[in-house]
């Protein structure tokens, strides 16, 4: 696994922040937006220059920040999985992004006529570009490399597709995850939807004021049983279940009772061949918007009924990292399994009045076998992943 987010530049730093309850939300420093005093974000600490140096890129590169973050996280994942020869097995890459190269698009939008040097970024505008750069940096060639963009469930869907590609035997190994950087485009977009909080986001709190945007990238390495056996690999967890469904309700809002999220969770449980009662912890999507937390909470109640497992949202740590969120939270879910720990849902003060479920508010040690993670997005896109210690 590899990760870079507002709460850390690698897996260890992210884990430490999670168990110490340390948020990465702050005022914005790297984008000069007129909204800088009204919003809070989850920014990665490195500047583009620092990221370029870490990767070892020349100054004439055309990497968007999304690609820079993606490469850092993907390289960590390769190292963590002890992969020294990527060509030894048939390896693909499935990435996810929604912002893509938009940071450079908006920076140079009107400059291309005059500024010939900036034109190198024209090739990095499309959403597949960051994925291609990750593939190139990892040495993945002549292979299946593609990108999913289903808004805020994108990376969960990348993990889902990766699991299916291995299951079907099409690939032996697949690098899955996602990356999204902050941009004026998303800041202003969410601002117009009036779902940005002007302070720290408070998932599942009665007085929640909306989300904080974040930037991040995370990648995980999925390998077939054959590789695991042949190489005697350490397995963090198994992708036990997955489900995607559509709310078919509204382009941006979730249905009142979370039909899509309910279906996604039910599908994932069915694929995993387990019951709702087998879930030990839920890493909720929990963006802290009025609409999401109500709809998702009701969906959780529909699936889990009275026996609600411990649940929390980690959005108060990282902000909402959009297309990357599913991968970020997959890493967090797997770390929870590894360390048998449930992260506190930060900033919660008041119980929501519509239902009685309350997120886990303190760090909790508990033996965990199976963790469920939700990712819900625009276009009614709802995804659930289930990770387990057992195959």
């Amino acid at each position, binding site marked *: 696994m590899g990760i870079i987010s507002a709460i850390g530049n690698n897996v260890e730093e992210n884990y430490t922040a999670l168990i110490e309850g340390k948020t990465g939300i702050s005022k914005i420093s790297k984008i000069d937006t*007129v909204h800088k005093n009204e919003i809070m974000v989850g920014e990665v600490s490195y500047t583009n220059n620092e990221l370029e140096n870490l990767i070892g890129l020349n100054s004439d590169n055309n990497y968007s920040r999304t690609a820079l973050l993606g490469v850092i996280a993907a390289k960590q994942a390769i190292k963590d999985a002890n992969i020294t020869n990527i060509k030894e097995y048939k390896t693909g*890459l499935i990435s996810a992004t929604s912002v893509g190269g938009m940071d450079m698009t*908006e920076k140079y939008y009107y400059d*291309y006529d005059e500024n010939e040097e900036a034109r190198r970024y024209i*090739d990095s505008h499309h959403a597949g570009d960051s994925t291609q750069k990750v593939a190139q940096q990892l040495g993945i060639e002549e292979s299946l490399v593609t990108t999913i963009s289903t808004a805020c469930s994108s990376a969960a869907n990348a993990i889902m597709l990766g699991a299916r590609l291995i299951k079907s035997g099409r690939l032996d190994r697949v690098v899955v995850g996602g990356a999204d950087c902050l941009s004026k485009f998303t800041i202003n977009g969410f601002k117009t939807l009036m779902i940005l909080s002007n302070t720290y986001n408070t998932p599942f709190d009665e007085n929640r004021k909306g989300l904080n945007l974040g930037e991040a990238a995370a990648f995980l390495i999925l390998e077939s049983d054959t590789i695991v056996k042949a190489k005697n690999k350490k397995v963090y967890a198994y992708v036990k279940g997955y489900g*995607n469904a559509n709310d*078919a309700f*509204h382009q941006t809002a979730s249905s009142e009772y979370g039909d899509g999220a309910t279906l996604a969770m039910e599908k994932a449980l069915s694929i995993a061949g387990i019951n709702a009662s087998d879930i030990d912890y839920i890493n909720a999507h929990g963006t802290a918007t009025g609409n999401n937390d109500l709809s998702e909470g009701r969906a959780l109640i529909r699936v889990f009924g009275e026996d609600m497992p411990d649940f929390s949202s980690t959005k108060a740590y990282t902000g909402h990292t959009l297309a990357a969120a599913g991968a970020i939270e997959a890493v967090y879910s797997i770390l929870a399994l590894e360390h048998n720990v449930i992260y506190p849902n930060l900033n919660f003060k008041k119980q929501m009045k519509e239902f009685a479920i309350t997120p886990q508010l303190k760090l909790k040690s508990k033996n965990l076998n199976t963790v469920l993670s939700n990712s819900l997005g625009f276009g*009614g896109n709802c995804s659930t992943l289930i990770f387990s210690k057992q195959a």
Partner: protein
Amino acid sequence: MKSVYIDSVGSISSQKTFDNSEFLNEITVYNDNVISVIDPVYKDYVAPAAARRMAKGIKMGVVASKIAMNEAGIENVDAIITGTGMGCLVDSEKFVSAIINDKEQYLTPTSFIQSTHNTVAGQIALGIECKGYNFTYVHSSVSFESALLDAKMQLENEEAATILVGGVDELASHTIGIHKLVTHIKQEKVSSTKLLESKTTGAVFSEGANFFVLSNEKKDNCYAELAAIEIYNTLNIENLDNAIIGFLNENNLSVADIDILIQGNNGDVIYDTYYNHLSHDLFSKIPQVYYKHLSGEFNTVSSFGMWLGAKILKTQKVPNEVKLNNIKVETIKTVLLYNQYRGENHSFVLLRKC
């Protein structure tokens, strides 16, 4: 494992392809470097008020999917999977330019909402109230093939019985402008009848939507069997022959078994070398077809290539206008499609007669 079939098609392109009872009966010849689509009467398929609100990409996607679903005689599907290189590009441009021009003030959410890449798939789902699996792939020239591969795996494994799959992209003025600057769009206007003789860099940019209903049950009016797909992020021209032979071998075929090769030549003197290599060497004795002189180039134009392959297999006719050579074939049983854009993101798709 179940076999996968193309039950129906719906195409909106720079040719009059929206009427499934025809097959390139009349060809529109262009003399330009950017071409648009020949629009169907959209309000025949969606309510006029709704059609007015829709971005072009959404409108093309929704209507092409309706045409395909009408032909298949179904009102819903188990899953919707789309490919799009750039999504609803006009709205993306509108929102970026508004941010810059108005200094992040007075913005409205409509164009932001529509700019999300999965808007077309989401809108189709909303329209037919499909709560099933809904994915959108956004990887340049293999966006459509990624969607196709996903659908094929689900149908083979019986995770779904019918799936709507499509590719859609729309033109937008800023993107056209900057792609002209870097000559990804040809500097000069080109006659579509002479595209491959242009000997200049760049392509003729375009837009379109091609949707298909796929299923895992063979029906009487089926277009073709979708036999195999392979995607390569990179492929050197030196390795192209090996890759294609390997792909055919995996499907128990050799080059001689291919009845028609459909290639994605777009008239770019640099990158057409890949297609020319196959035309002149490995496939020199095989009937060959091309299509981007009719459709133009866009990230998901290979979905038009598949439309063409499906139509050829169903009608057993090859329109003269698409022929790259004059080699004749009696019965068309096996069709191979090859596409790449600017030397990256290559794909092979294998279709068989039903």
